[in-house]
Structures are given as structure tokens and as C-alpha cells.
């Protein structure tokens, strides 16, 4: 058989409407559709605030000086809590993987941590510590740490045995094995666990602020709830959501891209 030029497979032709089916357009379309539904619902039902009403409320709240101060307070609590979660989650998860006594001692406690709702913790810490910074941080830690512990434990058990054997055969020092082999092989698990922990921890901080605090994003949402102001509740709810989305997009996605850079062709991955 002779191959002639016409037999060569050509790239599919690009249509003028190609951009309409791109992933970027799909993402923006979803956002616009959500906004339109919100606008329609706000117009149709009196109890639901419109996007415009919510935006105007946030501008007023900004002028009252409430936005930056309350966000800062909640963020400081969340950052302290989530930093503790990272340290404790990794340490406990690794200890459970390395020592069976630790594993059997802590398994039930971790299960309790996972199953006991943050709502219960929130009520307890308000009773114990009242309106202080301790409550939100403690609930953040007890609610989020188990998520990271479980993933770290699973990751530590997933370290490839053949690579461990190779490292043993070459007498690679233990600290280098830990930094170059164990931790990178666990990254997939750690990042997934920490992402869940961030969601759980941030939610826990807001919950405690809602139930028993006089500062923070959760408190401010509760304040407007008590005042019967729908725009206020919706506006602060929007802030809660935007903060977590921004953190996930700006920090966590970059972390994921960084540790996945060794995967061939990973540059264009969307996570």
C-alpha cells in the first residue's frame, strides 16, 4: 500500500464556536448561572437577599470598619489552629504508623474525634472558656486533626517497599530517607488530608464564633441573624466562602502542582 499525502491524518478543523466549549467558558458560565439564579431567587422571594442588596450591605459594613477587623480575628484563630493541626496531625499519624502501641492506643480516640460533631465541641468550649480565643482554636484542632491523622497514617503505610529496600541496600541515612522518600511518597495523602482539615477547621472556628464569641466572622454573621438582616447573614456567609476558596486556589492548588511536578505532562493539570 502506498501512503499518499491525503492519507495523513489531519488535525480536526477549528470551528468559530470552539471557545464556547472550552473549560474556561464552562467555569465562567457556571458562575454567571449561579449569580442569575441568586438574582432570580432574591427577586422572587422577599426573604432571600439579592446579589445587589448583599453587595450594598458589604459596602456599608466596610464603612463601619467591621470587615477587616473581624476577618483578621477569625484568620488569626484559624491560622493558629491549623498550624497546630499540621504539627499534631503529622506527628500522631507518623507515630501511629511506626509504633503499633501508639496505633492501638489512639485509634478509638481518633474515631471519637472524627465522629463527634464540631457543633458539640463548640457548645462545650463556650461553657468551658466563654468568649475567649481559646475556644475557636481548640475546636479547630479537635475537629480537624483527626482528618490529617488518618490520611498521614495511610500515607505512611503506602511508602513503596521496593524503594525502602533500595535505600537499605545503599545504607542511605535515615533522615535522608525520611526527607527524600517517606515524606514525598506521603504528600498525596498529606495534602488531601490537610485540605479536608482546613475545611473542617475553618468551619469549626466560625461555629464557635457563632455560638459564643464577641468577635470574628462567625460572630458578625450571628449578629445580623439576631437582627433579622438577611443581607447581613448572606454577606458574611459569602465572606466565609470566598476566604476558603481563595486559600484553596492560591495556596493549596500551588502546593499540589508543586509536589506533582514530577509527573510527566502534569503542567496543564487542573486540580
Amino acid at each position, binding site marked *: 500500500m502506498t501512503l499518499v499525502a491525503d492519507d495523513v491524518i489531519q488535525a480536526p478543523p477549528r470551528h468559530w464556536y470552539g471557545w464556547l466549549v472550552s473549560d474556561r467558558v464552562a467555569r465562567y458560565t457556571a458562575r454567571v448561572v449561579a449569580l442569575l439564579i441568586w438574582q432570580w431567587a432574591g427577586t422572587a422571594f422577599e426573604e432571600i437577599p439579592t446579589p445587589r442588596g448583599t453587595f450594598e450591605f458589604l459596602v456599608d459594613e466596610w464603612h463601619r470598619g467591621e470587615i477587616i477587623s473581624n476577618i483578621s480575628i477569625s484568620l488569626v484563630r484559624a491560622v493558629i489552629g491549623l498550624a497546630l493541626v499540621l504539627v499534631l496531625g503529622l506527628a500522631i499519624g507518623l507515630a501511629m504508623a511506626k509504633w503499633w502501641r501508639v496505633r492501638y492506643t489512639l485509634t478509638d480516640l481518633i474515631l471519637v474525634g472524627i465522629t463527634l460533631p464540631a457543633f458539640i465541641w463548640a457548645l462545650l468550649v463556650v461553657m468551658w472558656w466563654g468568649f475567649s480565643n481559646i475556644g475557636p482554636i481548640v475546636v479547630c484542632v479537635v475537629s480537624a486533626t483527626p482528618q490529617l491523622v488518618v490520611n498521614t497514617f495511610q500515607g505512611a503505610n503506602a511508602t513503596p517497599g521496593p524503594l525502602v529496600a533500595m535505600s537499605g541496600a545503599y*545504607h542511605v541515612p535515615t533522615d535522608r530517607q525520611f526527607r527524600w522518600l517517606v515524606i*514525598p511518597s506521603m504528600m498525596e495523602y498529606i495534602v488531601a488530608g490537610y485540605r479536608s482539615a482546613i475545611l473542617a477547621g475553618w468551619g469549626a472556628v466560625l461555629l464557635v464564633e457563632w455560638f459564643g464569641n464577641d468577635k470574628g466572622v462567625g460572630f458578625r454573621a450571628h449578629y445580623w441573624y439576631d437582627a433579622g438582616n438577611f443581607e447581613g447573614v448572606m454577606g458574611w456567609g459569602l465572606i466565609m466562602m470566598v476566604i476558603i476558596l481563595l486559600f484553596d486556589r492560591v495556596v493549596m492548588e500551588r502546593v499540589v502542582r508543586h509536589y506533582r511536578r514530577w509527573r510527566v505532562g502534569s503542567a496543564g493539570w487542573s486540580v
Partner: protein
Amino acid sequence: MARLIARDVRKVFPPTRSGQEPVHALRNISFEAEGHTFVTLVGPSGCGKSTFLNMVSGIDQPSAGSLQVLGRAEGPARIGYVFQDPRLLPWKTVLENMVYVQDGGSSEDKAAKGKEFLDLVGLGTSGSMYPGQLSGGMQQRVGIARALSIGPDLLLMDEPFSHLDAITARDLRVELQRLWLDTGATVLFVTHDVMEAVLLSSRVIMISSQGIVFRDLTIDLPFPRKQTEKEVAILQADILQLFEEMERPTVIA
């Protein structure tokens, strides 16, 4: 160069469940290898060849007998190990994989040494690539470079070409002969491919499926050898004949 002394080495794997019999992987393996020699353990799959290499490397311990590897200098002998699969850290670059196994010296020294041995196997320009970006043959060459880069007294190779296509494996066998002649290392190689054993080795130790040394043969052909040489084919046929004899059941009258 190293001196390897194996005396009555046995390996028994205990049963993992009640009612199971222990598995005798190796029984009474004894031999010595010394100097610039290329020793190949050849035998059927499951005869304990890889187990023996793991015990020499220290990954595993013998159940009985003794294994000694004496290096050139004081202290433990340096042992390089090339595995069946390359066993590279996939999240580290090729050069970082070379640095991973080095001990002593600054980071720059380790990188320079890694680069030197990558050059030796023709991968000097691939240091910044990740293993996943290399072909199977290139990855195995990195594995060989890594083993050589530690300046091994003894180089262990466990069927390093068994996962590669025939053409790549042929090229790497030629390359391995060159490297062995250049470095003067003591090599302990494992394969179930008789042709490969004849082509590469100065000595072939045949292990039976019962895990005992059946024959210890000297291959007295000049290096470098080619797969297409008549003498290689004749020796291969002779050894295969010996294998048939080895596996033939003994009839007791």
C-alpha cells in the same frame, strides 16, 4: 574489587499460616568470588537467586551459614545494587537520584560524582529530567550509574535487563561489558537467561530449583563478547544441556 565468601548459606522462609510448610529457598550455597570477576548465578525462577543477592546486600539475613563481603578498605564493603526494576525515586530528578545514595562530601561533590557517572552511561544531559520522562532502558542505565557511583567493592545485579525489550537489553549488555572492563569491579549477577550468563560472565554458578549449587563453571572466552559469536552459542547449548541433566529426576533402582 571485593572478596565474597559464602559458606553453607541457607534461607528458610517460615510459614505464614498454620498448616503451611516452611519454604527452603536456598540450601547449602558455598562459593567464593574475588577480584575483577563477573560471577553469574543462573537457575530457574524461584530457585533463590534474588534471595541470595538480598542477603549479600544486607536487605535480608541468612537462616544459617555465613556470608562475608570484604572490601578494599577498612569498614564495611561498599555494595552497589542494580534491581530488576530501576527503583528510582520518581519525584526526584535523575541527578538527585544519583545524589541520594552518595555518602560523605559536599552537595556539590555528590552532584559532580552523579554527573560523572551519568556521563559514563551516556545520560549526562538527562540529569534534570524525572525518571518518568525516560524510557525503561534509560532508567535502567541510571540504576547502573547509581550503583557504580558509590565506587562499589561489589556490584550486585538482579536480572537488570529482564523487563526490557530485546534490542535495548542487547545494547545494555554490550555497555555493561564495557563498564565492567573499565571499572574492574567484582560483579555478582543473577539471571535465568543462559545466553546472558555466557555473554557477560567469567564464571557461571548453576543453581538448581532445590536451591543448591549444581555446577560452578569458568567461561574462558575473551571480552568483549557478542551475542552472535559462535562460541557463545555453543557454550549456551552446553549449559542448557547441563540444565536438562540437572532437572532430570533421579531414578532409584
